[in-house]
């Protein structure tokens, strides 16, 4: 008898992903899909896709999906959850989507304690539009719009979303995790499972920030981009639980 150690989750469709080779968006999609299957909620889940590289996430998640205007996914999630309280609702958002154009929506969704889950993919760059500087871009990091490195005098220091939102009283759970190796990917899945479990228990706003990579945007190989997460991103964006009501 052979036992399946690993196979593609039925939480994903058969549509091949259009992401660049080695993009960790694919890994994060798998973790969310596997979680929804393991919690047996795939059939009653509504995903909200952002604008960004993951704009086509609705093609990949094997559940009902809506695609929101840039940054507005939390507002759409809020409305959907209020009118469909028995559904599991999550947004999937990049750092440009969530931490730049959609700052207002994410702050107020968290502040209201909307009983939704936010999958926040922080790759420190605007991937889709060609690697421009994001609010999360690291100090001195070169991007197509900061060719000499991000200057803090002109652009400020990178915004720490998990730290910021965890100050809001109605937030139930926020954790920052990483995708740069197998052990961290496994830990990331545990965090995602906890967030969805809290939503099922009606505890309120939950968010998992996943440190992700954009090797094309950084101009390095996929394997090197994992080292960038480990050596450059984690020191500035420490992993850990920032809020947990339990």
């Amino acid at each position, binding site marked *: 008898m052979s*036992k*399946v*150690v690993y196979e593609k989750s039925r939480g994903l469709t058969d549509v*091949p992903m259009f992401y660049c080779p080695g*993009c960790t*968006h694919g890994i994060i999609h798998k973790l969310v899909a596997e979680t929804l299957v393991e919690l047996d909620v795939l059939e009653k889940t509504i995903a909200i896709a952002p604008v960004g590289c993951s704009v086509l996430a609705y093609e990949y998640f094997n559940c009902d999906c809506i695609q929101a205007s840039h940054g507005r996914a939390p507002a759409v999630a809020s409305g959907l959850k209020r009118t469909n309280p028995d559904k599991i609702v999550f947004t999937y958002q990049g750092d440009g989507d969530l931490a730049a154009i959609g700052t207002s929506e994410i702050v107020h969704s968290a502040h209201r304690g909307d009983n939704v889950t936010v999958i926040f993919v922080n790759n420190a760059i605007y991937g889709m539009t060609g690697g421009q500087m994001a609010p999360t871009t690291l100090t001195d990091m070169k991007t197509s719009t900061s060719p000499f490195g991000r200057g803090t005098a002109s652009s400020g220091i990178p915004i720490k979303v998990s730290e910021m939102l965890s100050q809001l009283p109605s937030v139930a759970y926020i954790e920052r995790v990483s995708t740069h190796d*197998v052990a961290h990917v496994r830990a990331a899945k545990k965090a995602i499972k906890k967030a969805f479990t809290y939503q099922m228990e009606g505890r309120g706003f939950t968010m998992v920030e996943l440190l992700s990579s954009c090797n094309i945007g950084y101009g390095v190989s996929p394997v090197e981009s994992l080292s960038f997460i480990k050596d450059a991103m984690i020191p500035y964006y420490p992993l850990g639980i920032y809020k947990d009501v339990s």
Partner: protein
Amino acid sequence: MKATYSASGQTLIFEENLCKGCDLCAHVCPKKILTLDKSRVNAKGYNPMTCFDIDKCIACGMCGIMCPDSVITVLKEEKAV
């Protein structure tokens, strides 16, 4: 196209035409038995990932976990008790 590598206790199946040759699976494999086949390209135009020593595979599943494109299935033979 499925490429299957099998030994007595473990099997790897690669959905070759979905592979983008990113090398992440080979990077995390503890046995270092995965390599890109530079002599071929798949339907996407990438060199596909292959296994050159399936006997050494311990069916840990790490390659599968790390593959962003869900290319890899890992099977392990369970011993009869």
